[in-house]
């Protein structure tokens, strides 16, 4: 019943947040690309919370946008609330978070995909990899269609051997009652990939008209919303923002849960997959933090044209009847009608240390994986890997070297390096604390960090790059001007300084010196000495940040330089660690398993000591000298 259905450069299996970025990137880089999905109505679906962004995650969305990806533009078109978080803290941790209209989000993304020239969108379930001599050549679908390609990207999310669990009830399913993907899992295993079982969960959804909002606190969006994409100047969504609402669990809630713990699969042993610590179910929270009297519950609209509300904080796999009791014990939800039941879902993931930093699998050449299948959790984490897997699958199809973002360039680099170098024993979520150069990986400078790379790859248009160059140039010019400009201790200056509780000037100072004072902002400087050319808000922000935090920024840049030296020391692919004299046994095993590309990556493998690195360096020098002697 099999038939040859088509030939492509790149095939992407799965059209979730990872898959759509991968497919769009590959197509925009000039590859004939096929995007296969089990259900065309589920493109870029948000099976859990209707929101995008937040600390670290929002940074990733900005990075995707800086590289020329879609997530930022798409959420800017479809948000129902926009909020800048952490505004009371430093610029590095300011984080944008949007509430999405999840239905609009899907439709907008589908439209973008359908319009993309070199991208073919096709409904179908990939069941088998075509692997010839260790090289992936395509996939075969359930209907027997054989699609051939140069490279394949697998982004199966939680569909891979998915199993939904609610109390005593358990059935094979993808998220939101979609068909699970069962056979592909076997095919991956047969081709030598090691899989693990992870678990995640989602809370129930409730009907808006049955919520008593008077018992909750309103959580509005920002009056003047910021946007994720550097391209978005205005969104018509800005005027129509919807609030979220805050309530708390009650004593009664905790009692219901405690009384029904024997029915909770988390504790009865029905769940074998490892769940994330940072996204515990409500039953888990109540057991582990028994002395906490109440937990926050946010009620979030799932869209502008739906009555469905997402109950954030109430992720659960309790039986359906208990879920309803729990909901109704919460102030404001006494009369609530449940529209969808919460559930836990178990799925297969690939042990990510089996991947190169390009996200290509080590055992099957030409096969890439991205998103939840690599052990992460979250739409943004998935999308960040998706764009990189798409870029590298396209580059491989075009016989080009892979592109790797390092830890000092972006959260995407931190995440991928963590995954492929250290692995993960629970679903991995990005946190700003995972980045050692947090101050450099700011939300505001994602374009400065990555847009030149996006241009080089071919995902940033000339027009956009010209705008970027202009911004960069204007910021640099203004910094140079501030260094030269003299601000005198005249009456007007002293008065303004006094009004912001800043010490009066003793002497004439330059603009940089004055702007370094914690209480002085760029707006004040503008007052003393306006820029001769008009600067946009984000240019001003850039100037202010680069001046104010220069000491700390320089400290981190010095560390980055050290790292760069280690990353430059490449390790040859064919190194035989068992033959490296003097390496500790544990180091030999770990190095053999991870096969780091360079000394920098090797240094981050747990169990590899500084002495092992020294020995490796001596060995490499030995190797290089022998190779050089042979060739001369």
């Amino acid at each position, binding site marked *: 019943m099999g038939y040859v259905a088509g030939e492509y450069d790149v095939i992407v299996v799965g059209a979730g947040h990872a898959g759509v970025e991968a497919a769009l990137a590959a197509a925009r880089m000039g590859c004939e690309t096929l995007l296969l999905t089990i259900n065309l109505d589920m493109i870029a679906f948000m099976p*859990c*919370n209707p929101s995008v962004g937040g*600390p*670290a995650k929002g940074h990733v969305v900005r990075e995707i946008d800086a590289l020329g990806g879609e997530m930022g533009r798409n959420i800017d078109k479809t948000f129902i609330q926009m909020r800048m*978080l*952490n505004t*009371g*803290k*430093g*610029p*590095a*941790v300011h*984080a944008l978070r949007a509430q999405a209209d999840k239905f609009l989000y899907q439709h907008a993304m589908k439209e973008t995909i359908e319009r993309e020239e070199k991208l073919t969108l096709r409904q179908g379930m990939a069941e088998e990899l075509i692997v010839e001599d260790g090289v992936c050549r395509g996939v075969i679908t359930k209907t027997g269609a054989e699609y051939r390609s140069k490279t394949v990207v697998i982004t199966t999310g939680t569909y891979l051997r998915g199993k939904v669990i609610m109390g005593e009830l358990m059935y094979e399913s993808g998220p939101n009652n979609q068909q699970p993907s069962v056979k592909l899992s076997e095919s991956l295993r047969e081709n030598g990939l090691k899989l693990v079982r992870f678990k995640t969960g989602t809370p129930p959804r409730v009907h808006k008209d049955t919520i008593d909002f008077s018992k909750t606190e309103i959580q509005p969006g920002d009056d003047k919303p910021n946007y994720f994409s550097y391209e978005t100047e205005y969104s018509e969504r800005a005027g129509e923002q919807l609030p979220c609402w805050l309530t708390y669990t009650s004593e009664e809630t905790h009692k219901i849960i405690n009384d029904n713990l024997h029915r909770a699969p988390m504790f009865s042993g029905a769940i074998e997959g490892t769940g*994330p*610590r*940072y*996204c*515990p179910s409500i039953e888990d*929270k109540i057991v*582990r*933090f028994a002395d*906490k009297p109440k*937990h*926050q519950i*946010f009620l979030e609209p799932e869209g502008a044209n739906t009555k469905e509300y997402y109950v*954030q*904080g109430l*992720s659960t796999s309790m039986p359906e009847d208990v879920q309803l009791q729990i909901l109704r014990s919460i102030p404001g939800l006494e009369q609530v009608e449940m529209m969808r039941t919460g559930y836990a879902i178990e799925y297969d993931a690939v042990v990510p240390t089996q991947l190169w930093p390009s996200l290509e699998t080590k055992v099957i050449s030409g096969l890439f994986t991205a998103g939840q299948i690599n052990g992460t959790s979250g739409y943004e984490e998935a999308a960040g890997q998706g764009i990189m897997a798409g870029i590298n699958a396209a580059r491989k199809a075009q016989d080009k070297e892979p592109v790797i973002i390092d830890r000092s360039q972006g959260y995407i680099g931190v995440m991928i390096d963590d995954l492929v170098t250290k692995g993960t024993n629970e679903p991995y979520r990005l*946190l*700003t*604390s*995972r980045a050692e150069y*947090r*101050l450099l990986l700011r939300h505001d400078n994602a374009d400065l960090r990555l847009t030149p790379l996006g241009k080089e790859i071919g995902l940033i248009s000339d027009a956009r790059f010209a705008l970027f160059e202009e911004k960069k140039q204007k910021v640099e010019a203004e910094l140079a001007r501030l260094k030269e400009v003299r601000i005198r201790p005249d009456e007007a200056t002293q008065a303004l300084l006094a009004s912001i509780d800043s010490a009066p000037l003793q002497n004439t100072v330059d603009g940089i010196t004055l702007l370094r004072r*914690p*209480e002085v902002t760029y707006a004040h400087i503008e007052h003393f000495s306006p820029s001769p050319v008009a600067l946009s808000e984000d240019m001003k922000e850039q100037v202010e940040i680069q001046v104010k*935090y220069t000491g*700390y920024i320089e*400290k*981190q840049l010095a560390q980055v330089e*050290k790292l760069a*030296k280690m990353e430059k020391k490449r390790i040859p692919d064919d190194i035989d660690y068992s033959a490296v*004299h*003097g390496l500790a046994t544990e180091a030999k095993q770990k190095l053999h398993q991870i096969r780091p590309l360079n000394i920098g990556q090797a240094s981050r493998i*747990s169990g590899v*000591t*500084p*002495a092992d690195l*020294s*020995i490796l*360096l*001596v*060995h490499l*020098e*030995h190797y290089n*000298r*022998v190779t050089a002697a042979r060739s001369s």
Partner: protein
Amino acid sequence: MNEDTIAAVATALGEGSVAVVRVSGAEAIGKVAPLFKSREDLRDVPTHTVHYGWIRDPATGDVLDEVLVTVMKGPRSFTAEDVVEISTHGGVVAVQSVLELLLRSGIRMAEPGEFTKRAFLNGRIDLAQAEAVIDLIRSKSSKAFQVARKQAEGALSKRLVPLKEQLIELLAHVEVNIDYPEHDVAEVTAGVIRDHCGAVLRQVETLLKTAAEGKILREGIVTAIVGRPNAGKSSLLNALVKENRAIVTDIPGTTRDIVEESVTLSGIPLRLLDTAGIRETEDVVERIGVERSRGALGDADLILLVLSRSDSLHEEERRLLEELKDRPTIVILNKSDLAPRLEEGEVRSRYPAERIVSLSAKEGLGMEDLERAVSKLFMSGGIESGDATYVSNVRHISLLHAAARSLQDAIDGAEQGLPVDLIQIDIAAAWESLGEIVGDTASESLLDQIFSKFCLGK
């Protein structure tokens, strides 16, 4: 070649002659020059020249030592980098304080075998010697590892662990504020940061003060004196310290406590532990003493096994001779003034001649033979960890200084109203410095802390 600049003591630990601190790297000359008080500026001198002057702490103006400084510019040096060698007076204090000053000036302590490694990587050492270089790194690091492990169980570590815990709790709280801004977790205020960091800083400063008073500096080679009751251990100790510290009687088992004393033997500082007799005993008080002796034996860098030459070998002594064969042990045949009854052949079949010394502790005869044996064992590298312990203490002091600086920066930052994510950088740096002393700074432990202390999630 663009490596950072490193320093370490290049000579074996000892008193009397000279000690050499070697500095290597692109900034070697530039970093040493401001510390060197002389008619010449090191930055202007020709390569391969020796200069007379003083090492002076520019912060306090204190002169640390009168020295000779040799400048060797790369590539004609051992490492092929710029190298400065500072010859100080021998002894622990001078060389240690010079090294400490270098580390405070932004020079990094060399890793085990690092000079040789650089020499090799820079092409100064023949390819054929690659394996030898690797063996050197491996053996030096395993020694350093042993020392580090010993210290991890030690007194300093016990004081640092709670400080580290206080800092990581603070860090976890800050991180939760940053990564979970909408959670109902109280914000860490500037006041909280100031108080927490201030409390830790005060304790770090107390530790540094102890170090400055020389308590840490004085740590020498841990030497255990062992033997059966009445073999003459306390007499030997007394002969070594030349004053009556331990009680000496003819009743077996009167030394019930471990007596500690420091002496310098041929320039080598020894920390002497006189231990209770190793013997099965029913006496409870004495049994405690014996157990402690066994413990002291385990920690010792050097063991002096005292046998009475006037008695024949006991079972326990045979066992000890066997047990201690592969340790840095010197066998002392005491009471050489009395008629010999001991089966010397059994001792000599197990130990080489240079590790057996005949003496009379009571009469003070043959003590110079013991000095010679200890110094020979030490110089041949037979005694290992004394050297490393002393070097790592300099490292500890510089790390404590670094931690104190970071904590002060954090406090200043909090007072200036800097954002919490910037102050976090300094708190994390302090935590890492303390962690380097104790030997662990896994970042995973921060995440563990965050998720075990705070209830987070959607």
